[in-house]
């Protein structure tokens, strides 16, 4: 163990343990626990894995395997703003590839990455269910449809995600 665990990390692990303890009696509790942790912390730190494994009486490999399997779960802190752009067929039919390229350039951030200053993360998403109003995206959990490059720039200044 790292003897110099920062107090913030200790507090985080306490939250992880509380989340696991609150939900572990449910059948099939692992996904609800992981959601609960990510909702609170924004990601699932590597140090959470042994804590969850201990609470659920699973191996660390099993917990790690589940976290790494699902695209939704993050193991690194996300940027202060999260931009998720749909890359699926219906959005492609309405110019989503051009929008995606514009977004990468405008945000100075590639897909699957967080910009070095921590301001924004850019992620692909495969369908938001807004396929009749493509292209669609989500910024900080809020849905937007019929997004042109111009509308994208406006959304960034409105949400502060472009700063």
């Amino acid at each position: 163990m790292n003897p110099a665990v920062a107090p913030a990390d200790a507090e985080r692990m306490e939250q992880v343990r509380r989340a696991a303890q609150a939900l572990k009696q449910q059948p099939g509790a692992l996904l609800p626990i992981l959601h609960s942790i990510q909702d609170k912390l924004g990601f699932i730190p590597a140090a959470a894995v042994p804590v969850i494994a201990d609470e659920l009486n699973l191996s660390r490999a099993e917990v790690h395997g589940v976290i790494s399997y699902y695209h939704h779960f993050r193991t690194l802190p996300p940027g202060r703003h999260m931009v998720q752009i749909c890359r699926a067929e219906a959005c492609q039919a309405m110019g989503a590839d051009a929008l995606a390229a514009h977004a990468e350039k405008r945000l100075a951030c590639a897909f699957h990455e967080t910009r070095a200053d921590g301001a924004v993360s850019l992620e692909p998403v495969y369908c938001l269910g807004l396929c009749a109003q493509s292209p669609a995206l989500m910024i900080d959990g809020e849905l937007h449809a019929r997004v042109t490059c111009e509308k994208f720039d406006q959304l960034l200044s409105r949400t502060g995600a472009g700063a």
Partner: protein
Amino acid sequence: MSATVFVPRDSAALAVGAEAVAGAIAAEAQRRGEPVRLVRNGSRGLLWLEPLVEVETAAGRTAYGAVAPEQVAGLFDAGFLVGGKHPSCLGLTEEIVYLKRQERVTFARCGVIDPIAVADYERLGGYAGLARAIDLTPEAIVAQLTESGLRGRGGAAFPTGVKWKTVLGATAAQKYVVCNADEGDSGTFADRMLMEGDPHALIEGMLIAGLAVGATQGYVYLRSEYPQAKRVLEEAIAAARAAGYLGADVGGTGRRFELELRMGASSYVCGEETALLESLEGRRGIVRAKPPLPALQGLFGKPTVINNVLSFAAVPTILARGAEFYRDFGVGRSRGTLAFQLAGNLKRGGLVEMAFGVTLRELLEDFGGGSASGRPLRAVQVGGPLGAYLPASRWDTPMDYEAFAALGAALGHGGIVAFDDTVDMSKMARYAMQFCAIESCGKCTPCRIGATRGVEVVDRIIAGVARTRQIALLRDLCDTMQNGSLCAMGSMTPYPVLSALDHFPEDFGSAARAKAA
């Protein structure tokens, strides 16, 4: 007497500013001292008109759309609260041709009522199916389902009655009812719209399933990309519990049925039923080999009814109005209605519920109004990312399960994605392989390795490297994936790839054209 104004809180409306419109209407009403009762309904499915605002008038509900927040003061000036004329006025909602031509059965209440309010749902026939089911034996409920001809609306089209009968016949201390709400196909949004617009129909369908097979616990497995559906379902489940429909004493019968909402975590394969069950059990969403069938050994190894949202949502109507009522819609072995979803490059995208048998061309042209871009339509993908791309010569095919199977295509969940003539079909074939590579669960080799090799082969075809040989290789690879994969992810990814190659050879260079000729 206050006017009643409807502003949807369906995702499709929220994504184009419905929240701001609702806020502007409330503020303007207050400023003018005109009392307004604001109802946050679901969507009518006329998605090019969202936000679609409706007002209850003496003549019926009058629609205005698409409404921008800046137009709200003008709407008040025009007297929209009593159906006044305004450039955005569309007349009576029920008379809008797009809606009037439809056969709304499962979506009859969607966009009409307050989705949460149990009383609204009951007023339009809701929970009447459950009342009927309570009076029937489990065998009689299952017989109704079988007679209705309902087949699984998730895409596999397996007869729902047969599935339920298997679970009913299984002996176990615990059985489960699971709803597959992991609507991951691009071009589909009907499950989302139903859950956000009429969630009690899903809850009632699951309750009836519980009575039919003797299950006391249900789960809705919802994809994490649908945050609004999550909010609405949570509220509706709480309302159903408060009204005594869910819980220890379903509708005063002394029988128990609990329902819990569980969230997925972005894995396309979890839309496959056995992968979904693995995920619900807290593991990686990896496909199980069948048999055993989930109906016999499903969730936690117990007999489980697992159906799509729209399969469950069709059940209350079948029970309330009788199997014949439902069966009288449709053609051949495709009975009832399907919620077609018009998506991609179409002028009038939206949800069109019709009996099976309508043609693709009617949907694209009469409803969809042609392309949004104004350019000619060229290719249409039916049935999600695993569905075939069809050229104009196939658009007169009736939409039914057997007719599509005969084309080497699949209706799937009824999603229809249109592309105009700027589409590059070799790029779409590449994307199909790439998507499979991203989402493969990794359990079987043809899918896990085949998808990655598929991307490479398509890349070489696009680059013009030994094109004839590479196309032969791609066909061989598709054959392996189709026949050797464990589930639809690997076995159906060849559908979009081969259909693109067969119907649009000109996009794959001259060698492909020579081969297809």
